[in-house]
């Protein structure tokens, strides 16, 4: 059962072959067994979870079930959920109990999905390895000496080890796609503005976007149907007609379902910095796409390299502003001892935040400080436009862009923890997509042999704005003729 698709799990529930309480219990038991080692979950609440499963069973019995009713989904601990401990991976929020539900949580609740627990993450989503979490590292289920990627590392390990049916993540610079690549499953960052940011703890507001992390594109399409939609409480939420993201999937069969599809390969994504083994796995996936009817077009995204400096101005600048709310007054950590109000702020924040979060707040404070705005923030916003223009030009020549998701496979815990700049380069191929606000997806494309272990490699698919349904079709077509997405790590 644990390797079944969401559609198959839904059919099992509809036919009364299994109840949601039984299905949820099986996942909770698996979590009890494996989580002490993998550390994918920060918060579990068996009673609350099973009450939701029982309510789902009643709804199934009443005949009002929706596709995800009764299915256990893990929620990244960045989403505020009423009555749930919500920490965002930080000591600052260790004792924070959600007083309301995030838009994403509300939508899953309304669909009848079961909240299985809150997953581990890099502190305030700042990291690419899950090593900045106050609640400890997460282990990559494929090789437990390695990182799962980040920041959605807990959700990633939970999906890979089948400790949930599917999970949610958020992606500011690659935090859904890079862990999807390193842990061998499917992850999608939608167009900026499609999924509500209400109640999603803010990191860099102009880049943050939530999306599904699941075993297949079909599963992600079902989750997108639940997650997307306008929310007046998010000032950047886009007002658009409701879409059915599963609508094109049935047509993805036959000899050449992708005949005529123009796939752009950016030269900059296959240059220096890409691991050779990862490059050949990605090339093999592209060859498979040619068999499905796709045509290859060589394109250029000349400002790719600049996306990293631009991101490391914009994201810390926005973070320094967003994280100023943690002052130890209304909620969150307050230092036990202080002399006056200023000292209370400074000590509470020094104790509540970890090293990487402090670094980013300091960078952000610096680039926004008097006299530096034009040289840093404004300059970065201008180059951001150049990066978006690169994509716009590319999409006149092709329908989707493909390439590697991450430059390498999962690295060893501790390997890059002491070198922020090396860690930042992990997101070389993903960050530009956030800066442009485009949708990006990673799907399993195979494995690279590293020191005797087979480690997953992801293929990144970048689409034009609002092209998620087509991207999911394209991923689904590949998943009809390959079985990488069904592979599971040993020992789980």
């Amino acid at each position, binding site marked *: 059962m644990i390797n079944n698709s969401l559609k198959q799990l839904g059919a099992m529930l509809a036919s009364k072959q299994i109840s949601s309480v039984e299905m949820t219990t099986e996942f909770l038991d698996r979590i009890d067994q494996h989580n002490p080692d993998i550390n994918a979950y920060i918060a579990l609440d068996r009673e609350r979870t099973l009450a939701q499963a029982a309510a789902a069973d009643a709804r199934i019995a009443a005949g009002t079930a929706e596709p995800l009713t009764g299915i256990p989904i893990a929620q990244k601990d960045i989403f505020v959920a009423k009555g749930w401990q919500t920490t965002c991976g930080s000591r600052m929020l260790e004792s924070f109990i959600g007083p309301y539900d995030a838009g994403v949580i509300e939508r899953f609740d309304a669909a009848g999905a079961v909240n299985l627990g809150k997953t581990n993450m890099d502190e305030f989503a700042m990291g690419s390895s899950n090593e900045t979490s106050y609640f400890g590292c997460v282990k990559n289920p494929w090789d437990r000496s390695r990182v799962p990627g980040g920041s959605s590392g807990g959700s990633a390990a939970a999906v890979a080890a089948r400790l949930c049916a599917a999970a949610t993540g958020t992606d500011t610079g690659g935090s859904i796609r890079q862990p999807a690549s390193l842990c061998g499953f499917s992850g999608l960052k939608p167009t900026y503005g499609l999924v509500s940011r209400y109640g999603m703890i803010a990191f860099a507001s102009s880049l943050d976007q939530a999306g599904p992390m699941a075993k297949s594109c079909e599963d992600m399409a079902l989750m997108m149907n639940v997650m997307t939609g306008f929310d007046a409480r998010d000032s950047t939420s886009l007002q658009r007609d409701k879409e059915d993201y599963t609508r094109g999937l049935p047509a993805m069969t036959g000899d050449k379902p992708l005949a005529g599809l123009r796939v752009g390969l950016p030269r900059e994504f296959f240059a220096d910095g890409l691991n050779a083994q990862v490059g050949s796995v990605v090339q093999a996936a592209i060859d498979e796409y040619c068999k499905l009817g796709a045509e290859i077009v060589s394109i250029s995204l000349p400002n790719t390299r600049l996306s990293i400096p631009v991101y490391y101005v914009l994201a810390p600048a926005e973070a320094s502003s967003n994280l100023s709310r943690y002052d130890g007054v209304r909620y969150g950590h307050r230092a036990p001892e202080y002399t006056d109000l200023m000292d209370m702020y400074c000590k509470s924040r020094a104790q509540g935040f970890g090293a990487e979060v402090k670094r980013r707040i*300091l960078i952000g404070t*610096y680039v926004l*400080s008097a006299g530096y705005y034009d040289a840093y923030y404004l300059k970065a916003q*201008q180059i951001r436009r150049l990066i978006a223009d690169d994509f716009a030009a590319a999409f006149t020549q092709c329908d989707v862009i493909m390439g590697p998701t991450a430059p390498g496979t999962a690295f060893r815990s501790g390997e890059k923890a002491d070198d922020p700049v090396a860690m930042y380069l992990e997101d070389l191929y993903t960050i530009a997509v956030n800066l442009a606000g485009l949708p990006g997806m990673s799907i399993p494309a195979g494995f690279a042999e590293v020191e005797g272990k087979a480690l997953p490699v992801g293929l990144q698919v970048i689409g034009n704005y609002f092209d998620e349904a087509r991207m999911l079709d394209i991923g689904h077509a590949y998943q009809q003729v390959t079985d990488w997405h069904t592979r599971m790590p040993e020992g789980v």
Partner: protein
Amino acid sequence: MSLSISDIKRIATLARIEVSDSEAEVTLHKLSGILGLIEEMQAVDTTGIVPMSHSQDVTQRLRPDLVTKTDQRALFQSIAPAVEDGLYLVPKVIE
């Protein structure tokens, strides 16, 4: 541009984060590396380019001027570090 220890102390004060002398040394080293990365931007000529803040051409929405929130003070204060009589407690700021 290169940073000094006194810059780090000044930024940390602006950011309301206490930084000890030994932490400031480490932070200086790490931040200098990150700023070195950021400096790559300065080689680009951006004269006349309109800064981009949102990928879509959107404007701020307005909402009707109606009361939409209910009083949840007790709930919100249940997770506060220190409250009394419905007020948040902080160290004395006015003599």
